[in-house]
């Protein structure tokens, strides 16, 4: 018993077996060993299976020539490029849809979220209908719908809808003119950069002036004037050293110009409409989370509705909106892997699909593909943590 001992500095040690620390340690060791054994078991099975079945291993295949073409590639690519490059092409295509999807989903989502709260009954019900329809239908189905039911009902290239012989819309996609720069274009390029710099400093100056004198300066028009005017003047004064490469029907297809293929179009459309429905809900609840008292207090101070939104409501709503918003972005990126269903050459389609099939190296390729998505989500969650820490309201 304890009272036999004189006063001790530290509390007595517990018996080993019922010491929670010891138990936790033992439990953790057992758990770790189990997991490690399980992983070992799997890895060993895989290795022996692969060896006994004569499946080649390693990442050497990345240097071999692929031998197949890809519909859309943001970097130089042809049949003689390596599988490594195929991976890059797929990755870039994935990033392209994701970025476009995020962009449009954000815009549509915010608009719909705000309309959902409109005091106009009809508008708010329309927005609600949009949200309820699109978020309750599987994305894959929506992708099919946009691709098959809409995209395939467009006319063929020979009957393409056109705007002034420079824009063509057909079931081969949307073709728009591509700019081709000539040697003298340098000056215009510099002018564009210069005007961007000018606009930035103008905005800064305007903000400073506002803080100093309280006078608002409407930078929008001035900026537009600078952005368009200066380069235009330079452009024409140097003799318009650029021409447009117009798409034109040649043989079976349009040649020249920039093509937006229907696969990309349908995918971005489906992804952004689907995700926007979720974003709209996020935005709505974010705005509603700002208490009505805030708006009232701001109006009682005489602030106009637009400013109330900008200075009081949105900054507070954003704290609530951003975290779920980023996870929507992540979902969108992951969902872009459904591209394969309609033949858009994203990472899963060209790398985890065709490449895997040509090389048969499933383990390596699936591992690489999964890591790409994991890295993406890691980046997003790092951003989230940073943002949450930065934005946390200071409390007592």
């Amino acid at each position, binding site marked *: 018993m304890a009272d036999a001992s004189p006063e001790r500095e530290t509390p007595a040690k517990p018996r080993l077996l019922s010491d929670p620390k010891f138990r936790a340690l033992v439990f953790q060791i057992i758990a770790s060993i189990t997991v490690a054994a399980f992983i070992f078991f799997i890895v060993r099975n895989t290795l022996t299976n692969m060896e006994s079945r004569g499946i080649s291993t390693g990442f050497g295949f990345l240097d071999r020539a692929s031998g197949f*073409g890809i519909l859309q590639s943001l970097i130089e690519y042809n049949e003689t490029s390596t599988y490594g490059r195929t991976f890059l092409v797929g990755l870039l295509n994935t990033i392209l849809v994701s970025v476009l999807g995020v962009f449009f989903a954000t815009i549509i989502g915010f608009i719909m979220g705000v309309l959902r709260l409109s005091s106009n009954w009809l508008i708010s019900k329309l927005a609600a209908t949009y949200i309820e329809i699109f978020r309750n239908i599987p994305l894959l189905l929506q992708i099919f719908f946009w691709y098959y039911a809409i995209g395939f009902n467009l006319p063929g290239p020979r009957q393409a809808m056109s705007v002034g012989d420079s824009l063509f819309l057909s*079931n*081969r996609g949307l073709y728009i003119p591509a700019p081709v720069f000539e040697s003298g274009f340098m000056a215009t390029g510099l002018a564009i950069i210069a005007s961007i710099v000018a606009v930035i400093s103008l905005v800064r100056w305007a903000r400073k002036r506002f803080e100093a004198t309280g006078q608002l300066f409407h930078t929008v028009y001035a900026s537009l004037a600078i952005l368009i005017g200066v380069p235009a003047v330079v452009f024409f004064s140097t003799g318009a050293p650029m021409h447009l490469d117009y798409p034109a029907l040649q043989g*079976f297809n349009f040649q020249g110009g920039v093509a937006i293929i229907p696969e990309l179009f349908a995918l971005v459309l489906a992804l952004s409409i689907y995700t926007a429905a979720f974003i709209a809900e996020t935005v709505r609840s974010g705005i509603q989370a700002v208490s009505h008292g805030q708006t009232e207090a701001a109006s009682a101070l005489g602030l106009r509705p637009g400013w109330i939104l900008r200075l009081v409501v949105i900054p507070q709503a954003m704290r609530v909106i951003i975290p779920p918003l980023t996870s929507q972005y992540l979902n969108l990126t992951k969902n872009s892997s459904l591209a394969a269903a309609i033949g858009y050459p994203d990472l899963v389609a060209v790398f985890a*699909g065709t490449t895997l099939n*040509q090389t048969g190296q499933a383990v390596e390729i699936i591992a690489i593909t999964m890591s790409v998505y994991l890295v993406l989500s890691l980046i997003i969650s790092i951003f989230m943590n940073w943002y949450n820490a930065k934005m946390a309201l200071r409390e007592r």
Partner: protein
Amino acid sequence: GATFDAVKKKGYVQCGVSTGLPGFSATDDKGNWKGIDVDACRAVAAAMFGDASKVKYTPLNAKERFTALQSGEIDMLPRNTTWTFTRDTSLGLNFAGVNYYDGQGFMVSKKLGVKSAKELSGASVCIQAGTTTELNLADYFRANKMEYKAITYDSSDETVKAFEAGRCDMLTSDQSQLYALRIKLTDPNSAMVLPEVISKEPLGPVVRQGDDEWFNLVRWSLFAQINAEEAGITMKNVDDMMKSADPNIRRILGIEGVKGEFLGVDDKWAYNIVKQVGNYGEMFERNVGEGSALKISRGQNALWNKGGIQYAPPIR
């Protein structure tokens, strides 16, 4: 070997087929699988169990098929798969034979008014992912210094749908498939198959490396069918043929000479194949030939002594 024993033990053959390619492997209204590839599995089941119905099917798209076979999910893959060097050597697979000699061709809409593939520069091509077709196409256009845009789909259904909708100017695939896919069009006569054949596509059942017993069974199930045709044994007359005096026929039907035990199966293995699945010619006609909607002529797939190249080593 391991696969052989495993199949024997579980009592059925797990067969990897395509997700739907009329004449090769497709389900009918009632969900029963039909086609040449399906029959390859049925023949093996007939040889092994004396019952051609002891087969279970796993529909696979082109992308999944090798992984599925490698991983052991299926026992054999007769899914019109082209025999190539890489596949045979680096994927850990063995091709057991050729049940269909094919070559890649093109299908275009008649409206386009082209007569030859050489006129197709700049065309958009619908194609199925993960096939040799993808590679041949690239080679062909590169060799002829032509441009193309490949739109790659996961399954042949989508390829046809896109072709029909005009998303691409032509569809490329093995000739046999082109005929099969053509009948999936709303109006099969609106499209035509161009004469060019740009590649050799020997199609045949595939097994995993490392089980020669199983490999032999699959290979000789096919050979038995070809030999049966050569010897004139058919589904109908097989019982009569049992009484035949022709030593070749008697050997094929396991009455004398060779023993089924060399393959690890019953002596009447070949009899069962012919009785339940038919000889090669019957199988061909029923699934893809005149007796089917595809109406493909025997061509290269005729027997070697009838102007084709189907040739099987003798059973002796």
